């Protein structure tokens, strides 16, 4: 079947979600809601210090049987993690610390008790003797000669370093206009509203370990747990029940999860650990933490030439299984040229180990930082040469005629119209009216600014791309097992994981389209390794492209067989048969006949005598799918925002926010718009609110939601979304992924809007989150440089 299938009917329908009912009834089942008789709670003893040698762990005498150290867990393998490259240094992350702790919050011992409170009581009495070492908290200083090392056997603190040199570097160096800036995107947490959690028990009847896990990818976690515990994979079943958000933070195997799985075997009764918010903030997956020192070069006429400089990513104390966070630097570097016809790229990158929680993926992975850097640089270049930033962007952005276009960073943009996207965003935000308002002064003394930022979002990248990245696991396909029951209802089992994205609904729409039946007849199953085919889970905006494609293929194969059986039952020529509205229709020689698909299903499942001779019974297939082009497809868009900034308090209010976006063919517009709005809310968090700062001793300073500010309903504006639609060429129906885009551009667009409000003095909002203090300080510094009283 051709990849370009005419989208009709259910494709593009605003179908309300199938998964809402259980949540609205309060009947959803998250990991913490699982009840198994005999269940006991686990609490962890965690390191109070950022760095040190563990000299001893003293258990309370009367409770020592309830306290487990690494040695007590039995044979646990500490898995190598990170890319499979000789140049990548390994730093194993044990489920419980052995002789060294490398960040404040690292698990040292596990305590099992009847309630979580009792477990915490005992944990408080475990005495850990640690010889403290100096903490490494600054990733740039960590690379200086003589810096304290995290791993003695490493030559320095870098997991990996690289230099990317592409294009005409000499021309960039000789360019007449050079603008150099430093940017920082600080460390944050991923903050799913449901924290991580694990419930594990040994099922005596099936002789297998059952692990309920709040995860984005049950199958991959099963592999990790089986390898960690030395069990064959068929003896481990991982079940992801309802998952309360993922965003990347639930896509790595974490120490608590391995420890609890091991304890279930060791203790012989069910155990659970539910991450609390403090644990989430100090010891879950951390994200961002990029430092840039970059120079952008241009001709006098504004033609951009090159980007050059240094990128540091502070990856924390360990690499998380399977792939660590090393993609972060290469993706940041490769995205630095943005959508522009930049011809030279020279970037040195460092992925650095520090005494902070390990870094992992988070919605947008690396691109929020890269987008912030390049889009702020374009605005700064515009100011330098006295041009409007919007015009400079439009002058340099890749045009529709140039697509497909391979950037100097090696990304191949496929379909779209980037110029139209810019123009649409400008019109949506009403730039003319904003400029007019800006020219008059505000009665409250605030300054108005408008900013633009373009982003692109790679999705659907397959095996070749992941092999380039040397992944330990290559998520190059997805699969779907489709089964039509005897009454014509359908069960689709997939290997991706829904944690709010509406897969139950969109996959059903795709199958309904292919099978000509109503989506209400279709059930989607995921998140259980024993009932679903192998798959890699949901991340990297891959689900609709990969699993959607697998569902389409499975549906088509079922439809083919349904048509053959239907034709046989109606004694029609199979070539004249099609399915529509729940029936198989034949229209040979002017005679129209039809029969319900359910009759075909009945024949195939329980009345084999009705099948054509030689045809196998059942309507069941398992398909795998990988898009034609492994390089991926690119969603893109332009964010536009208007802000009001109080120059003294530094408080930023978002007055308006609009985006023009293009994610190819849309399966369900309601869900796409909601992904955009939700992604932008997270991006606003990165831009203005969320940060985990560290003291010089390596203590995390935001450990509750009182210090770690998650934007609420008054901080996140209603986003107006405009659509362009340029279907992808290499995917089913022309879809492109949409999960991450919203989160990529907010720091860039808000930085540009704030800078625009103070363009006359050249304020530099170049560090996220752009807190009131940072914004006010940036304005004061610019005023001081201009000799204006603040």
């Amino acid at each position: 079947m051709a990849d370009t299938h005419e989208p009709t009917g259910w494709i593009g329908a605003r179908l309300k979600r199938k998964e809402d009912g259980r949540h609205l009834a309060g009947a959803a089942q998250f990991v913490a809601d699982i009840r198994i008789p005999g269940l006991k709670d686990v609490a962890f003893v965690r390191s109070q210090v950022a760095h040190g040698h563990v000299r001893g762990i003293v258990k309370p005498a009367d409770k020592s049987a309830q306290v487990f150290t690494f040695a007590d867990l039995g044979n646990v393998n500490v898995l190598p993690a990170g890319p499979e490259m000789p140049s990548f240094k390994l730093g194993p992350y044990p489920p419980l610390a052995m002789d060294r702790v490398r960040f404040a919050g690292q698990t040292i011992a596990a305590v099992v008790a009847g309630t979580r409170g009792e477990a915490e009581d005992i944990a408080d009495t475990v005495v850990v003797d640690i010889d403290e070492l100096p903490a490494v908290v600054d990733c740039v200083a960590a690379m200086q000669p003589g810096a304290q090392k995290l791993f003695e056997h490493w030559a320095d603190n870098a997991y990996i370093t690289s230099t990317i040199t592409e294009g005409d570097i000499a021309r960039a160096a000789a360019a007449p206009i050079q603008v150099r800036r430093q940017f920082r995107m600080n460390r944050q947490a991923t903050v799913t509203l449901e924290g991580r959690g694990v419930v594990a028990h040994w099922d005596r009847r099936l002789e297998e370990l059952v692990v309920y896990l709040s995860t984005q990818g049950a199958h991959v976690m099963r592999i990790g747990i089986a390898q960690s515990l030395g069990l064959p994979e068929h003896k481990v079943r991982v079940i992801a029940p309802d998952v309360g958000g993922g965003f990347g933070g639930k896509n790595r195997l974490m120490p608590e999860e391995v420890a609890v799985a091991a304890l279930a075997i060791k203790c012989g009764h069910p155990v659970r650990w539910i991450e609390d918010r403090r644990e989430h903030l100090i010891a879950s997956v951390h994200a961002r933490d990029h430092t840039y020192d970059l120079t952008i070069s241009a001709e006098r006429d504004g033609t951009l030439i090159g980007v050059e400089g240094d990128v540091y990513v502070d990856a924390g104390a360990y690499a998380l299984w399977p792939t660590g966070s090393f993609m972060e630097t290469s993706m940041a570097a490769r995205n630095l040229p943005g959508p522009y016809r930049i011809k030279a790229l020279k970037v040195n990158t460092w992925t650095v180990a520090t005494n902070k929680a390990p870094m992992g993926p988070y919605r947008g992975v690396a691109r929020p930082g890269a987008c912030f850097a390049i889009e702020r640089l374009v605005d700064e270049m515009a100011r330098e040469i006295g041009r409007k930033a919007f015009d400079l962007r439009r002058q340099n952005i890749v045009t529709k005629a140039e697509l497909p276009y391979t950037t100097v960073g090696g990304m191949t943009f496929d379909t779209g119209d980037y110029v139209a996207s810019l123009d649409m965003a400008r019109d949506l935000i009403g730039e003319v009216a904003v400029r007019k308002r800006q020219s008059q002064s505000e009665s409250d003394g605030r300054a108005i600014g408008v900013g633009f930022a373009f982003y692109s979002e790679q999705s659907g990248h397959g095996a070749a791309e992941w092999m380039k990245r040397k992944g330990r696991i290559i998520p190059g396909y997805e699969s779907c097992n489709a089964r039509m029951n005897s009454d014509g209802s359908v069960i689709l089992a997939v290997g991706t994981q829904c944690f709010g994205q509406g897969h139950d609904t969109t996959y059903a729409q795709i199958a309904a389209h292919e099978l000509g039946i109503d989506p209400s007849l279709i059930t989607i199953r995921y998140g259980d390794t024993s009932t679903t085919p192998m798959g890699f889970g949901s991340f990297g905006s891959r689900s609709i492209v990969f699993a959607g494609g697998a569902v389409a293929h499975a549906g088509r194969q079922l439809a083919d067989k349904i048509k053959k059986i239907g034709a046989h039952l109606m004694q029609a020529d199979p070539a004249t048969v099609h399915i529509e509205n729940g029936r198989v229709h034949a229209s040979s020689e002017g005679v129209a006949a039809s029969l319900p698909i359910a009759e075909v299903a009945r024949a195939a499942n329980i009345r084999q005598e009705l099948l054509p001779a030689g045809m196998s019974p059942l309507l069941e297939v398992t398909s795998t799918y990988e898009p034609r082009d492994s390089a991926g497809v690119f969603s893109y868009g332009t964010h536009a925002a208007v802000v009001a900034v109080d120059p003294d308090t530094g408080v930023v209010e978002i007055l308006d926010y609009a985006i023009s976006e293009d994610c190819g063919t849309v399966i369900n517009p309601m869900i796409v718009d909601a992904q955009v709005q939700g992604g932008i809310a997270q991006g606003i968090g990165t831009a203005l609110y969320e940060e985990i700062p560290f003291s010089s001793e390596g203590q995390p300073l935001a450990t509750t939601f009182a210090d770690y500010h998650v934007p609420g309903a008054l901080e996140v504006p209603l986003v107006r979304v405009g659509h362009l639609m340029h279907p992808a060429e290499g995917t089913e129906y022309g879809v492109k992924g949409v999960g991450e885009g919203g989160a990529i551009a907010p720091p860039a667009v808000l930085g540009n809007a704030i800078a625009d409000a103070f363009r006359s003095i050249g304020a530099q909002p170049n560090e996220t989150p752009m807190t009131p203090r940072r914004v006010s300080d940036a304005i004061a510094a610019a005023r001081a440089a201009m000799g204006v009283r603040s």
Partner: protein
Amino acid sequence: MKAKVSLVLNGESVSAEVEPRETLADFIRERQGLTATHLGCEHGVCGACTVEVEGQTTRSCLTLAVRADGMHVKTLEGLAADPAMMVLKRWFHDEHALQCGFCTPGMLITARDILSRHRAPDAGTIRKELSGQLCRCTGYANIVKAIEAAGRELAGA
């Protein structure tokens, strides 16, 4: 020390011997097995644990079970037949006001309280009243729309 707690949970009398440190949230979830009430922070900021105590929205993570002795407590499970709640749920579904659903029970209970105190509130009022309910998925827009629509419907407007 344990203390006896007797309260009316969703219309049914329940009692138990509890440790004073046990929160109402844990009492409802662990002891009574009602799991619509979620815990997103356990320090009063996220609102996921919101229930009704004596008709007032209450963060069940900040309430000790012993202090709810003798009181009427309602969780989302107990509001299934509540007319305003039914309208809200319908609009939450129509407006796609939930993604992962973890914040949803707290959102619904808070939304019902908002509509009981404000007749057909506008979006600005709803946003202010909702500011203590965190949602990590939706970016709030559809939640605000759903409450606005439910408010209009309930006000007969």
